[in-house]
C-alpha cells in the first residue's frame, strides 16, 4: 500500500528523520509512537504526500509519490483517508457537509449518497449532531467527525494523527473501536499516538505492530510493550 524506502527529511534546521524504511501491507494495523517533536506527524505527512522527502523514496499504490503532479496528488488523497491532529474542518459548513466534503469535491451526487452518509453518522454516533457547526462540537465529537470524513470515500488506507489527543479515556476507547472495526473490514490503518494505554488496549483486539521513532530512526517496537 504505502512504502517508505530510506526516507530522510530535513526541515532546514537539521535532519528530523533519516534512513526510514517501512512498508504498510494491505490490512495491517500500525501504531506510530515516540516523544513529542520526534517527527510522528512529519512521517505521516510523508505517507500521504503533504511533504516530500529530502532523500529516499515514498511509494503509494505502486506510484512514486514524488513524481505525482498536483492533480494526481489530489487523486491519491482520495485513496488515503486522513484524520488530522486538528481535524481541519470548514467551520462555515455543518458537520454532515464537512463529512461529505470529500464526496462534494470529487463531484459526486450527494443525493445518491444520502443513505451512506446517514449510516456513517450513526456509526460514529453523530446522528443528533449532523447540523451542528464544527466549533460547537466537543473534542471527541470532532475526532469522530474527522474519522467519518476520512472514510467517506472508502479509502484503502486510513492515517490518523493523535486521534485521541484531546479526549478522555472512554472516548479514546470508542475511537479505537471504530478503527479496529475498519481494520477488520480490510483497511490498512496507521495511527500516531503517544498513548501507551491505547496501544495496549488495541493489542488485545487486533494484531497491531508498533513503530517507534527514536533518534531520527524508525524502530520496530514489536511485542515488548
Amino acid at each position, binding site marked *: 500500500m504505502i512504502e517508505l524506502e530510506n526516507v530522510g527529511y530535513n526541515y532546514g534546521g537539521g535532519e528530523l528523520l533519516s534512513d526510514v524504511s517501512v512498508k504498510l501491507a494491505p490490512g495491517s494495523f500500525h501504531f506510530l509512537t515516540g516523544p513529542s517533536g520526534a517527527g510522528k506527524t512529519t512521517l505521516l505527512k510523508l505517507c500521504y504526500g503533504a511533504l516530500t522527502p529530502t532523500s529516499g523514496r515514498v511509494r503509494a499504490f505502486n506510484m512514486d509519490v514524488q513524481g505525482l503532479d*498536483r492533480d494526481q496528488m489530489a487523486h491519491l488523497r482520495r485513496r488515503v483517508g486522513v484524520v488530522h491532529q486538528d481535524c481541519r474542518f470548514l467551520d462555515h459548513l455543518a458537520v454532515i457537509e464537512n463529512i461529505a466534503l*470529500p464526496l462534494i*469535491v470529487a*463531484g459526486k451526487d450527494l443525493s445518491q449518497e444520502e443513505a451512506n452518509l446517514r449510516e456513517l453518522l450513526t456509526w460514529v454516533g453523530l446522528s443528533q449532531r449532523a447540523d451542528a457547526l464544527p466549533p460547537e462540537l466537543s473534542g471527541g465529537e470532532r475526532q469522530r467527525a474527522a474519522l467519518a470524513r476520512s472514510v467517506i470515500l472508502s479509502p484503502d488506507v486510513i492515517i490518523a494523527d493523535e486521534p485521541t489527543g484531546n479526549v478522555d479515556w472512554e472516548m479514546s476507547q470508542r475511537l479505537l473501536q471504530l478503527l479496529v472495526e475498519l481494520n477488520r473490514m480490510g483497511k490498512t490503518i496507521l495511527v500516531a499516538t503517544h498513548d501507551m494505554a491505547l496501544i495496549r488496549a488495541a493489542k488485545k483486539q487486533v494484531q497491531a505492530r508498533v513503530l517507534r521513532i527514536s533518534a531520527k530512526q524508525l524502530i520496530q517496537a514489536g511485542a515488548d510493550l
Partner: protein
Amino acid sequence: MSEGRLRKLIMGDAQADRVVPPSGFTAQLTLFVSGAMAFLAVFALALSLASGRLANRWADELARAATLRINAPAEQRLAQTEAALTILRQTPGVASARAFSAEEQAELLSPWFGSSLAIDSLPVPQLIEVIEGDPGYDGTGLRLRLQAEVPGAVLDDHTRWRAPLVDAARALRRLGAVSILLIAGATAAMITLAANAALAANAQVIEVLRLVGALDSYIAHAFVRRFTLRALGGAAVGVGLGMIGVWLMPSASNEGGFLTGLGFQGWAWGLPLLIPPLGALVAFAATTRAANKRLGDLT
C-alpha cells in the same frame, strides 16, 4: 473548455458554491468596481463613437465641397466667371460647378449686413461652388491652371481650417478608445486584487479542500465563477445606468453641434450591451490567473 465544464461554470454547482464561504466585502467591492467601470465605459464608448461620427461627417462634407472666389473688377467678373466655370467643367474629378446667383450671395451675407442692403453696390467677389467627384480633383494642378487663365480666382478647398478640426475629432475618438482599454485594464487589476484578497482570506479553506482531494481546477472554479458572475452583474447594472444617462441627453441638433451629438445612433445602441460579457471575460481571465498562481504556490 469542454461544453460540460462551461455549463458547470455558468449554471454552477450548488454544493461547490457552499464550499467557499461567502465573502461580503470583496463581493461588494467587485460589484461596485465592475458597475462603475461599465458606467464609465459606456461614456467612453459614446464619446468615441460621437467624435468618430463627427470626424467622418466633417471630413466628408468639407472635402466634397470647395469654393472658388473670383476677385475681379466688375467689368471682368462675368468673363472670368465663365472662364473659371469652363475650366472647372473640364477638370477631371469635379462633379459639378455652379456660380452663386446674386440673390444667393445676398442671402449668405445677410447675417452680417442685414437684408436691406443692396448687395450690388458692394465689391463682392463672385462665388462658385465646386462639388468634388470620386475620385477627387488635383487641387494643385487646378490652382496652377486657374492662376494662368483666371488671375482673379482663388480656390478655397477648406483644407486650411478643416484639417485641425478633423484631427481634433479623430484624436478624441482615439482618446475614447484608449479610455476603454484603460477601463478594461483597471477592471482586470482591481478584480485581480479582490480575487487575491478572497484567496488569501480563504487560504485555510483551500488547504482543507486540497487535503480532502480537491483538484486545483475545482477550487479555482469556485472562485472564478463567483467573480465572473459578480463582474457580469455589476457591469450589467453599470451599463444600464450609463445607457439611461446617455439616452437622457438632448438629442443631436445643428445648434448644439458636438455636445448634443454625444450619444448612440441606430445599431450603436447595441454596442454597450457587449460591455457586461466583456467585463465578465476580463474578470474570468483575471481570477483564473490569480487563482492558478496562488494554488501553484501551495503544496
